[in-house]
Structures are given as C-alpha cells and as structure tokens.
C-alpha cells in the first residue's frame, strides 16, 4: 500500500469509487480504503432506483444532473451498468399529498424536468398490474426519465476505471485513526500502515460518524435499518418504479426479471441492528399485494437489510468542514446516495482539484445545521 497520496477516500461504496475515478482522471494520486469489500454497505443493499422527483431544489438538481451523467456512464466506463429509464410513478393518495405533488412538479419543471400528473385511470397505462382502488390512489406523478441501474456493476465499473487510471483501491483495510496538526489533516492510520495526505474524504456510509469522531467532529447522522426483498424472476411486467410516500413502499422490476422492493416497519427505530424481521415480510407482502394483487402468486426468494445514514433534513453532508482543513464529507445520503453519486463526485472533484465551490455544495455543508432555516426533504421512501 502507498504511504503517501494526494487524496485518501474512506469507503468503497458507489460515491467513494466514483470520486476515486474522477480524481484519478484529473491526474491526482488517489488511495481508497474500504473496510470490507466494494459495495458492501448501503450501495450493495440499495433498491437501485434513480429518481429526479424530489421536493427540495438541491436534491432535484443533483438528481437531474446525475441522470444526464448516468445516460453516458456505460459508454464512459466501458462496462454495462444496466441503466434503463422506465420512469418513476409516485402514487398520490389524498388532497394534501396532491397539493405537495403540484408544488414539487412546478419546481421540478422549472428545472427543465419532464414530469406529469396522472389521473387515476392513467396509472395502469404506465404500470398495468396496479390496482388503483387497492392502492387508494387519487392520482400519481410520473417522470419517464427516472429509472434504475445496477449498483454493484456501477461501483465495480468505477473502481476498475479508477484503477486503470492509477488509483489504488485497498479492500479489507480498516481505518484506525486520523492524525491532524494545526487543525489540518496529515495522516490516515490504517491496519495496513499509515498514509500521509492533505485531503481525506469521509465516504464511509453509517461508519462516517465514527470516522469523524476520530478528529472530534460530530456528524448528525442516525443509522436506520431498512429491509428489502427480491422475488423470483418473471417475464417483464412493468418498467417503472412504483413508490408511495404515504405507505413508504417502493418496488420495481429489475433487468433480470425479479421484483425488488421495500417498506419501512412503522415501529422501526434508529440503530445499528442488522437482522431481517418477519414483520417486514408480512407488512411488505400485504402492501405489495394490495398494490398489485396478481403478485400474490409470485415467490419471494430472499430479503435483506441495509442502512440509511439519515441527516436531520434527509439531505447529504458534502464538502470541507470549517473545523479541520482537508477533511471532506461525502455522507448522510439518507437513502438516496446511489442515484445522485455522479453529481456528488463531480462537485467534490471540482472542490478538490480546482478549489471551486458552488451554491449547491455550500447549501449541503455540515455548517447548514448551525442555522435555523433547514429545508427538509419530504420525498423520502423506504
């Protein structure tokens, strides 16, 4: 392992690997360290969706610009990341939700996004297996350019491209400590040896909090266990991801044919527990067969857990912290780190390479939690 680098990235999820690739492409000497294997955290457990329909402007912008990059990514990285745009159908259940949906759509359209409000009878034109009465929908919003990609393939493709540009990626490598002097990052101490560097990016998912504590910095992150399931493979039934903010459910059919989806258990509390629960299977099966009754004949193959690293406003923490020079955050994704990873790594690359910040990045720094006007992202599922 190298003992010196321009940048050390902690965490081998999609954001860490994407950033390693972009920095290496700019000619920087990058070392990435990952405690387990690539995509072993939230990336590898995620629902693979890519959505641009958000309630806050930052999240919508991050996602819209990310989709533009996802469209080119298989070509750019030279590996198929299985990106497909089947759209996202968001069920709307009552007047209050419709008011918010209209507000969201107006904001999203002002950013150039094509998104429509559907009447109840138009819902099955998009996803034929849905039971509009069963799901108690009075309408829906639909954005046809939302979609999916394969999170493992995306992460591995970024990592392969980063390696071929000279980045060093060390899996099964644990960060033990961060050393600073004069309030600036100096050394990353790992179980394979120390690495001297001026820039550390904390992209360690739910472990980001523990990493920050090594330099006595508190991150407002709470881990939430999320459960998700996959069925057996079926012929292609529908292309859109179906979600509901009210019921918390999301599900879609993947390229290989399996239906993948999740729902929160109402009584779930924050914490580091990982065991899957039978309660989830009951609640998911109930809700899913209420939305799409035909699925009652389909076998569920497996279910697993992953974590959302949730911030108080459900938006990520990005950029350099005021307290320690060279200590950058890339965490707090609150369940949507995969879908905005292209733009997140772009913003951080601009900051690291050119010292260039942006309004978007400024609005997402740790410092925002010191103020009182935090705008919370409302469009969260799972």
């Amino acid at each position, binding site marked *: 392992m190298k003992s010196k680098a321009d940048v050390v990235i902690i965490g081998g999820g999609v954001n860490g690997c994407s950033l390693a690739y972009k920095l290496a492409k700019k000619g920087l000497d990058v070392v990435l360290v990952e405690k*387990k*294997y*690539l*995509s*072993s955290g939230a990336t*590898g457990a995620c629902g693979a969706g890519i959505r641009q329909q958000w309630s806050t402007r930052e999240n919508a912008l991050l996602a819209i610009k990310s989709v533009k990059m996802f469209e080119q990514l298989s070509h750019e990285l030279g590996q198929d990341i299985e990106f497909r745009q089947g759209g996202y159908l968001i069920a709307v259940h009552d007047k209050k939700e419709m008011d918010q949906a209209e507000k969201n759509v107006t904001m999203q359209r002002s950013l150039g996004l094509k998104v429509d409000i559907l009447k109840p009878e138009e819902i099955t034109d998009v996803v034929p297996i849905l039971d509009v009465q069963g799901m108690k929908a009075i309408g829906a919003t639909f954005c046809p350019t939302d979609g999916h990609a394969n999170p*493992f393939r995306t992460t*591995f493709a970024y990592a392969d491209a980063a390696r071929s540009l000279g980045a060093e990626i060390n*899996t*099964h490598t644990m960060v033990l400590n961060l050393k600073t002097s004069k309030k600036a990052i100096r050394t990353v101490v790992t179980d394979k040896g120390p690495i001297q560097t001026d820039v550390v990016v904390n992209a360690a998912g739910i472990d980001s909090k523990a990493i920050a504590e090594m330099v006595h910095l508190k991150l407002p992150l709470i881990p939430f266990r999320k459960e998700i399931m*996959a*069925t*057996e*493979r079926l012929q292609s039934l529908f292309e859109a991801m179906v979600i509901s903010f009210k019921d918390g459910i999301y599900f879609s059919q993947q390229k*290989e044919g399996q239906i993948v989806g999740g729902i929160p258990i*109402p009584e779930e509390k924050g914490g580091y527990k990982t065991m*899957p629960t039978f309660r989830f*299977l*009951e*609640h*998911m*099966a*109930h*809700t*899913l*067969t209420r939305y799409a009754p035909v*699925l*009652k*004949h*389909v*076998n*569920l*193959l*497996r*279910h*697993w857990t992953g974590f959302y690293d949730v911030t108080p406003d459900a938006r990520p923490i990005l950029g350099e912290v005021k307290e320690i020079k060279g200590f950058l955050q890339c965490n707090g994704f609150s369940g949507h780190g995969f879908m905005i990873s292209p733009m997140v790594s772009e913003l951080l690359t601009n900051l690291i390479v050119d010292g260039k910040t942006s309004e978007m990045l400024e609005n997402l720094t740790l410092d925002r939690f010191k103020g009182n006007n935090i705008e919370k992202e409302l469009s969260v599922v799972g």
Partner: protein
Amino acid sequence: MKRSIVCRCEDISEEDVIQAIEEGYTDIEELRKKLRIGMGPCQGRVCIQIVARILEKKTGRKVANIPLPTVRPPLIPVSLGTLASEKDEK
C-alpha cells in the same frame, strides 16, 4: 467446448468464476455481486460450496477460512400470497 456449470440458477460456469477471481473478486460476497451466484431460487445451496472450493484452489485460502455469504431469509421461496395471509398488525 466443455463448460462446467457451477450455478444452475444464473448459468455461471467454473470458467466464469475463475475469470472473476483473476480480475480480483476474491470474496464470496464480491463474487456473488459480480456474478449473481447464490441469488437464484436455490439461494446458494448448489453453488456456494463449489465456489468456495474454486476460491481455495485459486487463492490458497482454506475453505474453512472463506467466509460464507450472509444468510438471507426465507430458507425456501414463499409466495407473497402466503406471507400476506398473516394478519398485518399495526
């Protein structure tokens, strides 16, 4: 050409596994995510032991020291209708 199938659910051969190991995927979980082994209806009952032996041959690590993938319930496929027949307690 002779092709030994390792994973029947996802149609993965011994050669596919060896190639992935040579590309640097030397963990069963990594191979699983790369090749989808163990993600089909058998949930790894057929393939994982074989993959562990290939890993032993290629890397020299003993099978006993190769961690198995996390068990993901249920043990056998269950229909969503059966699961939904339980009461959904609030």
